[in-house]
């Protein structure tokens, strides 16, 4: 018999729910802050923006979530969309409850490639999680010498925008040109309206010395990519983070296989160049 202390990639690290808050007006999105029970686990859990974890409730199961917190924060933050069996159970969790996590898994955004470049972040809906981590991380690490940021972020309505206090903070940062957009006009909304692909088309995103990162629902990605290509972005300048129905997180269970890749291990971050010629199974 073995216990949790022996390295077994299927067994979880215990965490306590430190904070829970509704992220969206319709209560479908909840943000959880997780605190490790064992300090040594936190030290071991070294991640970078783009990576994900498996969140486990014994008896209910596991689901993968992109890590939304800045790596330098003590807690680990995830945002959970209530949509299935496990996520329903996660939404029932309260402060003080215990759960388990595994990870961090997968690769990171191409941080080394971003050095001395402009970073254009394009996102829609609740796929914004790991991008918030990326933006926080790059802003904190000035040694990357990012020359400037674009942030184009869209949601169905103002109530569905994630991390509103952060969005306000970033709006006031002179290094970030941010366009926050909602699908159609709503009372009290004075910002941009329109779908993300259209906003991208009308923006003056510059491909020169830039890396674009795009995350969102498949249809948004599909419609936005041609707009980036029209603006002159090459396929090795555009990165996306894929989501699949993953189970193991360590490239064993086979479910997230796309061509020669396992999304959980070789991804979730891929350049468009890598995805060219592979089945569009995402």
């Amino acid at each position, binding site marked *: 018999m073995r*216990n949790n202390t022996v390295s077994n990639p299927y067994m979880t690290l215990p965490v306590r729910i430190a904070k829970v808050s509704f992220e969206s007006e319709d209560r479908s999105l909840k943000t959880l802050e997780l605190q490790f029970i064992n300090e040594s686990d936190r030290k071991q859990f070294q991640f970078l923006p783009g990576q994900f974890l498996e969140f486990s409730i014994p*008896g209910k*199961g596991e689901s993968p979530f992109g890590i939304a917190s800045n790596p330098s924060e003590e807690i680990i933050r995830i945002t959970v969309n209530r949509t299935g069996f496990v996520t329903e159970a996660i939404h029932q969790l309260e402060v003080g409850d215990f759960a388990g996590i595994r990870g961090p898994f997968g690769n990171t955004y191409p941080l080394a490639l971003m050095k001395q470049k402009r970073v254009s972040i394009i996102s829609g809906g609740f796929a914004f999680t790991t991008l918030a981590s990326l933006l926080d991380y790059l802003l904190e690490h000035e040694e990357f010498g990012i020359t400037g940021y674009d942030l184009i972020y869209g949601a169905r309505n103002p109530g569905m925008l994630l991390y509103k206090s952060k969005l306000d903070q970033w709006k006031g940062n002179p290094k970030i040109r941010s366009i926050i957009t909602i699908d159609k006009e709503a009372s009290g909304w004075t910002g941009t309206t329109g779908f993300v692909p259209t906003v991208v088309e009308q923006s003056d995103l510059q491909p020169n010395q830039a890396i674009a990162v795009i995350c969102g629902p498949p249809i948004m990605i599909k419609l936005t990519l041609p707009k980036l290509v029209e603006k002159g972005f090459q396929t090795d300048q555009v990165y996306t983070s894929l989501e699949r129905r993953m189970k193991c997180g360590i490239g064993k269970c086979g479910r997230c296989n796309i061509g020669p890749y396992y999304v959980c291990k070789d991804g979730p971050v891929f350049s468009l160049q890598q995805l060219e010629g592979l089945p569009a199974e995402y």
Partner: protein
Amino acid sequence: MMRFFKLTQQDWEKFLQHQSTQIAVVSMEKSKHPFKHILFPPHETLFYFRKDTHKELSEIKENKVLYYGLPPCDAKTIQLLGLNLLADPADPYFQTIRDNTVIISKACDHFEPNCFCDQIGGSPGALNGASAILYTVEDGFHLLVNHDWLSEQLVQMNFIPSEVENEKADFSKGSVPVREIKPLPIDHLREKGLSTISKTALWEKVSATCLACGICTFLCPACYCFDIQDISFGRVGKRERTYDSCLFSIYTTEASGHNPRPTIKERWRQRLLHKFTYYPMQYGEIGCTGCGRCISECPSHIDIREVIRDAEQYCE
């Protein structure tokens, strides 16, 4: 180090008898159920948990077992599954079973109707992933051993080994059947398989009669896809993994309802290309042993050999 032993029928029986006083010795033969079911069981408990204390306990048994008599295509399972399951981080359950498994396969003396190992670069006398392989010869057996522990056991019983100088030499010569048969065009899929992705006509044809029952994947010695589910008994429970199949719609369906592989067309494409294109791209080997179970047991009589030949025409 590879070694070669000449054994009489009596020697062989003596060896098995001696082993069975020390470890479990299991006689095998080719059957509908692949050897995979032992190395990588259809249901496997990952760990037990308590919901109240949040303790997890995993049970990994280390029992040494010697399996003998299985065909080389079944022995190959240990090699093919290992490419994936032992890649970093290694799967501790598979690794423990593998490390405690000694396989003495037996070279086949005939081809069954759906056997095709010799059409995909294999042979009914190949060592593949086995610890040793037994060749039947006129006056007994030739045993080719590629396993230090096993060699030692034989030497301790005073069997005299001869060193194998050329590991690539064909030891099966004369004791396995050879037939004139055209190889399957797997190299096309290996090199140009990606070009078939957009060939809807091909996938429509191969998937037209498929019921998506998944029997081909469950019985395949090279398939390893699994699902993870929790089973609760009040405050305690266990996390289990069970075989899964790329042919099932729920395999890729996401909680939102979106399915990246919506029809059997995409799922069949995944099954074929994962074996003959993606697996070679990832690990250098095709995910097929030529055992023929997927042909024998398919309720729709789909023959993967025909699919491979069909696909050849679509490779560009």
